[in-house]
């Protein structure tokens, strides 16, 4: 039974490849259909190969404007959530204060709460405060739900940090600021980076909370949703593919840098 033996030996690899395919197939479809030239308004059936959409990615009215708003919100939400979240994480790990336990559990609430509920209650809050819905309300909402993720990521890192490292820095003539910049921050950096990346991704593709609190502002996910009712331009696939490529490039570069660093050390 040579086939059974072969199967036994390679089962793990086969299962792995199947899982990868399962994960990546949607991305492949998005990419393939970015080269489609649909006949009607919907890009659901393959017609013929074309690079028209890639040559003119902003050819659809309002799409690039919404993309720009989404990117701006994602960047600012990332900055805001990362700074606040890092400070909260340090406070929770390093200091004993009243209500620390309560804060520790409450910080997870936004992750557990159904998004639609949070979206609706946020809208109620904004309306009661008389806030003008738009860019700022979206940004406030995004920072709010990204915070939990940053706190979780940074907290794990700070908790595993040896407190003696900071004492060693102070012992070696580093003042409080130097200690933070030269020792604490670099060691916490991987956690902070993970939190920031998560924030960016979460903010960029959030639809539900944004949709409730956007007023007349249209973000990219909202644009895609809106166009799905009327007809989907191929450019949406182009943007999707481009985002995917940027992410892959990002991973490849960071892997390359780590490898280079490791081989230099050896």
């Amino acid at each position, binding site marked *: 039974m040579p086939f059974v033996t072969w199967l036994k030996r390679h089962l793990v690899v086969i299962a792995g490849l199947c899982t990868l395919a399962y994960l990546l197939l949607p991305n492949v479809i998005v990419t393939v259909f970015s080269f489609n030239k649909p006949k009607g308004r919907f890009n659901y059936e393959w017609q013929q190969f074309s690079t028209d959409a890639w040559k003119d990615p902003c050819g659809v009215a309002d799409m690039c404007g919404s993309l720009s708003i989404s990117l701006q919100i994602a960047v600012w939400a990332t900055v805001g959530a990362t700074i606040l979240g890092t400070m909260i994480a340090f406070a929770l790990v390093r200091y004993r204060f009243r209500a620390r336990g309560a804060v520790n559990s409450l910080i997870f609430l936004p992750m557990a709460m159904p998004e639609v509920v949070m979206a609706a209650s946020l809208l109620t809050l904004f309306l009661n405060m008389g806030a003008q819905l738009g860019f700022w309300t979206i940004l406030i909402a995004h920072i709010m739900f990204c915070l939990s993720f940053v706190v979780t990521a940074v907290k794990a890192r700070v908790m595993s940090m*040896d407190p*003696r*490292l900071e*004492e*060693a*820095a*102070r*012992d*070696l*003539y*580093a*003042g409080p600021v*130097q200690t933070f910049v*030269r*020792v604490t921050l*670099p*060691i916490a*950096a991987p956690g902070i980076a993970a939190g920031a990346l998560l924030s960016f991704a979460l903010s960029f593709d959030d639809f539900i909370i944004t949709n409730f609190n956007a007023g007349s502002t249209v973000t990219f996910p909202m644009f895609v949703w809106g166009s799905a009712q009327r007809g989907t331009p191929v450019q949406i696939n182009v943007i999707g593919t481009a985002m995917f490529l940027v992410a892959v490039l990002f991973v490849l570069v960071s892997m390359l840098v780590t490898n280079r660093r490791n081989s*230099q*050390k050896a």
Partner: protein
Amino acid sequence: MTTTDSSGDVRLTGIGKTYGSFTAVHPLDLTVPQGSFFALLGASGCGKTTTLRMIAGLEEPTSGTVYLGDQEVTHLPPYKRPVNTVFQSYALFPHLDIFENVAFGLRRRGIKSVKKQVEEMLELVQLGEQARKKPHQLSGGQQQRVAVARALINHPKVLLLDEPLGALDLKLRRQMQLELKRIQTEVGITFIHVTHDQEEAMTMADTVAVMNAGRVEQLGAPTDLYENPQTTFVANFLGTSNLIEAEVDTKNGGDIVLKAGGDKLVLPESRCAAPTKTGGKVLVGIRPEKIALTHADDAGSIPEGRNRITGKIADASFIGVSTQYVIDTPVCDEFAVYVQNVERDGRLVPGADVVLHWSPAHTFGLDAAQDIDAGVETVEEEAA
């Protein structure tokens, strides 16, 4: 390398530390002469590390002052003190390579050209080849040497070592003890070494302070502490001691004659740390290796003038260089005796009647008001 110049002495006066209602260190006075290798010895939780951290500035004392030479540093933050620490966990910066770890202190003080100094320091600890590696790529012993180099490169007035060899295995530990001693002699800097290992303290240090429950029990050269302990804790914590409760009978010149059971024991008055008045109680101590064993049949051959006690061998363990006996005696039921295996007497087996005898000059006297077992359990705990 000990100098008589006292401008670099570490002086602690009335220094103490309390956490809430718990007293970690009772106010204590301590002077560490410049250039000496000083050890703070004690079981875990005795306050030795807290004392060290107060010298480093990592812990604020509740009372008292810390002087480095003529400078009072009690309230200076650690980064303003000319003192460096080697931490128990080494605390090497994981994101920096060995070179940058060692250069850290120099760079923080704004010194630009560090290359030559760092390379020299890495040579001193024999790690020149490893400069570009990260700490996690080195072995425990190498990491330990980096930690020493990182502290020493700053030419501190005092180097503080907090159980620096605790994480190493026994063989490496012996090697590093000699290595640290060599470095200390070479650089001539004052070392203050915290350890719970009495052998380590005695091997390395010129002066040892034995700490117990936040107090210094006794301070002195290793031989003084061992040969003439002043408290039961020191007697039991440093090596093993046989302690016998005895009553003062008469005083005869410089000697005290004591009664223990039916036997008479002689103790030089100068070796007695307790007040002695006729009829009062004293603890008589003797180290196991100072005692000779003679079979009861040969009791007549024992020279006059030696302290003697009769007993029966309860147990004998042969451990190569010596044989360790446990003797059942009327005055103490577990008398420890170590006999070098030079000429072995085949009759000395469990059950044999023997006479234990030793020179009065090796006897020491302690205050009987103390706990006779102080320091005993602690040693067993550390060994476990």
